[in-house]
């Protein structure tokens, strides 16, 4: 574990060192690029004031992620069980991802106002896609030998689904969830740019317009920590649920 963590930690430390050195040697103004030590100081100053913002962003990200997971799985299962539907809807689903969220967001505000609903919708929109695609992929990768066994044994369509297809798609589903988890915080922040009472997105905007670059970096850092925590949470859940998976090197 320590051995695995050492190289990335070393690289990060080196990067921060060069950053700090450059800012000091070249006397770069704080409003252009603050030094890491400065950001660290601001972080601890801001932390008590940021709690409402952090809570607001987490709430939107989590709510959107949960709805996105449920919606994503429902869409994947539906498309898988009705291949005709997959044919008709798959291109449209891919298309929804080509519409830039930034462009879509003002429309959602126009339709649903400035409340929680349009913000959660944005998160759902960015989250369901990786889950649907990954889960569908998992369904397609079912071992043909096992499928033949099930069919010859006389298993019904439903039995084939929940005894074979669903469990074998589970690892793919979790891969989708991990991508979605990282997207969810980003989606929440973007949604807050459109107008919010609180949130890290709002904090970022206010700080940027006041040239408080150090606070922008504090917001960015917090967003990274949130994304990473969500990612790890899902990873833990996966490891606990998929104990049967062949571990590397075993």
């Amino acid at each position, binding site marked *: 574990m320590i051995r695995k963590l050492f190289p990335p930690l070393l690289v990060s430390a080196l990067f921060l060192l060069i950053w700090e050195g450059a800012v000091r040697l070249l006397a770069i103004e704080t409003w252009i690029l603050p030094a890491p030590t400065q950001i660290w100081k601001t972080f601890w100053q801001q932390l008590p004031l940021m709690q409402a913002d952090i809570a607001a962003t987490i709430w939107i990200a989590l709510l959107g992620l949960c709805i996105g997971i449920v919606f994503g799985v429902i869409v994947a299962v539906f498309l898988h069980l009705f291949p005709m539907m997959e044919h008709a809807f798959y291109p449209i689903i891919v298309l929804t991802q080509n519409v830039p969220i930034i462009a879509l967001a003002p429309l959602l505000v126009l339709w649903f106002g400035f409340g929680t609903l349009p913000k959660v919708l944005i998160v759902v929109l960015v989250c369901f896609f990786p889950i649907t695609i990954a889960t569908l992929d998992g369904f397609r990768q079912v071992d043909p030998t096992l499928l033949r*066994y099930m*069919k*010859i*044994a006389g*298993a019904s369509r439903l039995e084939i689904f929940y*005894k*074979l297809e669903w469990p*074998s798609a589970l690892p793919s589903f979790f891969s989708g969830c991990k991508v979605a988890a990282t997207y969810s915080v980003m989606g929440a922040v973007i949604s807050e740019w459109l107008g919010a009472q609180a949130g890290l997105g709002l904090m970022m905007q206010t700080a940027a317009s006041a040239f408080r670059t150090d606070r922008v970096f504090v917001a960015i850092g917090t967003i990274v920590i949130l994304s990473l925590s969500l990612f790890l949470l899902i990873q833990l859940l996966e490891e606990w649920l998929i104990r*049967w998976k062949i571990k590397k090197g075993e």
Partner: protein
Amino acid sequence: MLYCEQLSFRYQTRQIIQHLTFHVNEGEFVSLIGPSGSGKSTLFYLIGGLYEPEEGTIYLEGERVNGKRGLIGYMPQTSSLFPWRTVEENIRLSQELEGQIDPKQIKQLLERIGLSSYANHFPHQLSGGMQQRVAFARTLASKKKLLCLDEPFGALDALTRSEMQRWLLSILEEEKRTVLFITHSVEEAILLSDRIYVLTPGPMKVKKEFHVPFPREHRWDQRGNKDFLELREEIEAMLLG
């Protein structure tokens, strides 16, 4: 028990099986032997109802079963265990699909395959031979009378393979079942079967039928005998020629 009459099957434009006729009596162990890729697995898919024959009829216990699924016990060549199920849950699967779970029988089967202490292990924690024993126990756990085994020991190393053959002989002495067995090992076929069909490839047909004259209980020791070797040579010559 099983009677296949004039079966023909083509996959796209390739004729795989042509006018194939053979039968298996109740309680008999019959081997189908032929070169790899001669369509033996496809024959099992037909009997299992995965595909429908182009021509001909499959009778199981006197009933026409073309395209009907859920009537035979089937065991594929490669490990077909479900990786997320433990050994015990894998054996239970065949009973789950039949809607009747008999925990006592599963326990007995675990004992019989010598894997009682592995009941809660996952398949990837077992060796290849152990995995095939579990897959065979799963086939035995079903109530099906006809067991179709598709080269069950084909992927095992030579030593494990002969160990498994001996093990299968001993199991079948206790548990009388009707078995249709695919193999491309002549020795394996003579060792295990009552009758052997030698098949020709592309399209698949019966070339010759052999009765194995040696009594089952002594076969293991008779492997090196003159008669045994002669039969083996005769079948091998037929396969090559």
